[in-house]
């Protein structure tokens, strides 16, 4: 048996390895990023996809091929992947498909704090929810079992504190009570099953009924499964709490002696188990972060529980806030200590870009990444930031409706990884429906997915493990889409040229892409190292490749 201090992300990666996951794929996003990085480091097969939708589709294919498959993303990534998710619920899977959604209550590094338990309900998928790293490890095996037993994708919901908090994980001792017992990974194979997997209406109608029948079975199983457990507390029965995820740990600490129904299967909810639990206590309170999902469901089912006051929908919970919830205290809270806000690194190549945008008082439709920090002082040079890739569409919308003099001030700013993620279709829209004043898209290409910790993407020409692969050319894509003016400039080294090009393109009623290219200062040394390794790799492979002799006919 090993005893290690692991983050929840690391524990999921270890569980994926120990449970025979054949493929892990996803898109980087705080707080989920470290799962696939760790899975790779441990020897698993892990890869970054261009975005979450593609990652999930690759995962669905692998699971159709009978493999155990892991797909990871942050909560907003599931919005991108929602289209295949909802229909994969109908098709089901042959192997196991576990989709990690890492929610960010309190928005430590996100644009919203949506509660993805709603997705499990909306798509009709089981959702497993651990509270700490040990549960992240153990519950992963349960998620794989559910997926294989009912041939259904399983959502695995983590939150920032579960992903990033470190706690002790015991693993590798199958004899320990409650320890997961790995089963051999299934052989991958393909069997035709057109009725299940081709979702034309004639097949989808019975598939929806099959899904609901599976869910009914899982709901019955939820009432007795060990993912949900009752802790009797001091036995007085005066107070009972129903809690999930990390909220359970805050609740247990805030109320020693209270009975607790700890919910580890977020969907389907064990309503009857909760009804029995609530009947045995004088007062029952639901302690959950985010939306009142459990409270609403239990109240709708006629289980008399207290929901938290509305103010606790916002932000993370902690021990102090749980105490306030139990005291029914809805008075204003002390604001958290405000330290120094983050800022662009002093040597960041984007300072000159934002300096220029501020100087000319442009209207900047922005996007998601480190460069979102351009919105903070001293620049405050970003006017919108909504979703990954949205800068281009939002900029075009502004251009379409503003008077010409205003429209000419609009630029879209997007990072390289974000561009590949979902900016390309925005560029297609730009070429297809050009505003009459034209438009200018600035791609900030620092050669890495900087915000989440310098991950690779298709534009870097390297895979997750930094090994070489086909490199996507941003300027090539822009030209192929039909953008007439594509310029590459190092705005850090040539700020005057950047300013000149930008003003010139703004004045022209034409479509333009300006690529401001310079490596992220934090990643530059590593990028040089990986580039060198890639060059050596290409030379070595070229030497090994058979030389093509021209044939007689060619001569």
């Amino acid at each position, binding site marked *: 048996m090993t005893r290690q201090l692991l983050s929840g992300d690391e524990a999921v990666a270890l569980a994926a390895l120990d449970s025979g996951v054949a493929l892990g794929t996803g898109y980087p996003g705080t707080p989920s990023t470290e799962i696939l990085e760790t899975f790779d480091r441990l020897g698993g097969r892990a890869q970054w996809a261009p975005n979450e939708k593609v990652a999930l589709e690759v995962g669905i294919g692998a699971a159709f091929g009978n493999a155990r498959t892991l797909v990871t993303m942050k909560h907003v990534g599931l919005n991108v992947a929602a289209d295949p998710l909802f229909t994969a619920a109908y098709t089901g899977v042959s192997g196991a498909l576990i989709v990690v959604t890492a929610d960010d209550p309190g928005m*430590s*590094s996100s644009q919203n704090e949506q509660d993805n338990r709603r997705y499990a309900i909306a798509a009709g998928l089981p959702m497993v929810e651990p509270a700490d790293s040990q549960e992240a490890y153990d519950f992963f095996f349960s998620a794989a079992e559910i997926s294989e037993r009912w041939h259904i994708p399983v959502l695995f919901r983590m939150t920032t504190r579960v992903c990033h908090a470190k706690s002790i994980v015991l693993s590798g001792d199958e004899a320990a009570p409650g320890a997961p017992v790995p089963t051999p990974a299934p052989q991958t194979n393909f069997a035709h099953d057109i009725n299940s997997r081709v979702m034309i209406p004639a097949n989808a109608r019975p598939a929806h009924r099959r899904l609901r029948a599976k869910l009914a079975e899982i709901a019955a199983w939820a009432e007795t499964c060990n993912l949900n457990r009752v802790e009797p507390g001091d036995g007085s029965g005066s107070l009972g709490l129903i809690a999930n995820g*990390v909220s359970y740990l805050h609740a247990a600490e805030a109320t020693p002696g209270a009975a607790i129904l700890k919910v580890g299967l977020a969907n389907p909810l064990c309503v009857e188990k909760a009804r029995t639990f609530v009947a045995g206590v004088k007062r029952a309170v639901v302690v959950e972060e985010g939306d009142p999902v459990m409270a609403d469901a239990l109240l709708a089912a006629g289980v008399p529980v207290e929901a938290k006051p509305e103010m606790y929908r916002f932000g993370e919970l902690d021990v102090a806030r749980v105490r306030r919830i139990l005291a029914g205290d809805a008075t204003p809270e002390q604001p958290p200590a405000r*330290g120094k806000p983050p800022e662009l690194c*002093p040597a960041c190549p984007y300072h000159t870009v934002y300096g220029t945008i501020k100087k000319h008082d442009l209207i900047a439709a922005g996007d998601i990444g480190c460069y979102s920090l351009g919105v903070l002082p001293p620049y405050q040079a970003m006017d919108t930031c909504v979703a990954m890739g949205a800068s281009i569409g939002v900029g075009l919308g502004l251009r379409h409706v503003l008077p010409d003099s205003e429209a000419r001030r609009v630029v879209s700013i997007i990072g390289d990884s974000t561009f590949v993620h979902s900016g390309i279709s925005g560029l297609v829209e730009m070429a297809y429906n050009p505003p009459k004043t034209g438009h200018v898209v600035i791609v900030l290409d620092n050669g890495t997915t900087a*915000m989440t910790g310098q991950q690779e993407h298709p534009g870097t020409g390297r895979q997750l493990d930094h090994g070489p692969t086909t490199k996507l050319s941003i300027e090539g894509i822009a030209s192929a889409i039909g953008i007439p003016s594509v310029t590459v400039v190092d705005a850090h080294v040539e700020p005057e040229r950047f300013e000149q090009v930008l003003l010139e393109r703004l004045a022209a009623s034409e479509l333009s892409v300006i690529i401001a290219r310079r490596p992220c200062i934090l990643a530059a040394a590593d990028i040089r190292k990986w580039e060198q390794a890639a060059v050596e790799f290409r030379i070595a492979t070229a030497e090994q490749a058979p030389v093509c002799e021209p044939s007689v006919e060619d001569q």
Partner: protein
Amino acid sequence: MSAVTNVVLAGLGGQGVIKASDILADAALRAGLDVKKSEIHGMSQRGGSVTSDVRFGADVLSPMVPRGEADFLVILASSEVEVARPLLRAGGVLLSPDLIPEADLPNKRSLNVALLGALSCYIEIPVEVLLAAVKAALPERLHEVNERAFQLGRQSVAAQGTIS
């Protein structure tokens, strides 16, 4: 919950706050204690304020130190002292960078380890276990400098004579 020791480490991005909390948490693990550690990654890495919570003892539940319940506040940047002070409980110990004489610090980057040395005068984790965790977290070429920094932290506390 009195059996749990609550430590909050605070500073600015790039100062080694997370490294110090990793070392402390690893030392608690090595000492056979239950331990949890939590901080916010992401935006905070870009030079902003960083705090990291480490809790150890017989049985740790929540990974976060409740506000006003930190037994120890270990601060790496003077600018963060007032920001973090509300986290400390009444009678808790504040270890600020002023405690370490800058001129004696073998390397500015080892302030985090010097403050762990200072903390070692107060907590139940044995000094040799903490030092082993320091070494496990750093490449060998940095061991000597950091051991000196660690001892400097211990001497600084002893010189203050605040330990009863």
